[in-house]
């Protein structure tokens, strides 16, 4: 099935977004460029679609190449984002450098594509940062959700070290205490 048909047949927004990122990743990786999903779409992936975001945030070291690939796929610039009118999809490249460890990114297989996503520990740090600096209770809630859902699989040493670097230790400790109190 052609990409356009697959996207139109997608049953969820997440599936549609990941097919688009899959195609973008396929095009860019052949040029040695690796786009990495960060932000809300990363939370959607690790929550299997439980969380919902509008756009896809990508970190791409060579932003200009990514823009060329997006435009070749039919995306058009709308302010600081790229919008695809037929697919009603929005992509943003907020950064060229990952706020986290490149060695910890996850590869996700979806429908014949491979996409790359910020590591779980770095994503939790991202949500904690938003909770502290924006006063966002929603981000605090999702940091807590991810801690609980993946408590036995996280690299706690790395998570604690990053929390310390970013002055998030007190919120992280608070969330761990809640996790332990709830069993």
């Amino acid at each position, binding site marked *: 099935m052609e990409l356009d048909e697959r996207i139109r047949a997608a049953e969820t927004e997440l599936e549609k977004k990941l097919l688009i990122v899959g195609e973008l990743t396929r095009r860019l990786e052949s040029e040695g460029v690796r786009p990495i999903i960060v932000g*809300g779409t990363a939370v959607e992936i690790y929550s299997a*679609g*439980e969380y919902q975001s509008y756009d896809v945030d990508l970190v791409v070291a060579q932003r200009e190449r990514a823009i060329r690939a997006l435009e070749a796929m039919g995306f058009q610039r709308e*302010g600081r984002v790229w919008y695809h009118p037929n697919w009603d999809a929005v992509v943003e490249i907020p950064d060229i450098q990952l706020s986290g460890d490149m060695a910890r990114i*996850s590869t*996700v*297989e979806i429908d014949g594509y491979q996409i790359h996503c910020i590591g779980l520990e770095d994503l939790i740090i991202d949500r904690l940062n938003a909770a502290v600096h924006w006063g966002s*209770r*929603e981000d605090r809630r999702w940091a807590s*959700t991810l801690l609980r859902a993946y408590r036995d699989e996280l690299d706690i040493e790395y998570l604690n070290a990053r929390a310390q670097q970013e002055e998030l230790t007190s919120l992280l400790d608070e969330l761990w205490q809640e996790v332990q109190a709830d069993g």
Partner: protein
Amino acid sequence: MANYRWEELKARHQQVRQLLLRQGSLKRLPRSRPRHPDEERLLIDIAVRRIRRARAEGRLAKIDARRWRLQFR
């Protein structure tokens, strides 16, 4: 009673999204009214249960230390 066709609503939705995009305001705004702590705890519990169910059913599968598979069907 007003009658709407799905195609019209869908087109309007796209127009609204484009307008929001141009204003740079498509991103979710922080919730201004805090939830009750019990509601927040309940939402966390439900989300954790759904993630665990997705993994138990194989919709989200960890296939290696840093490798995952996501299935929609």
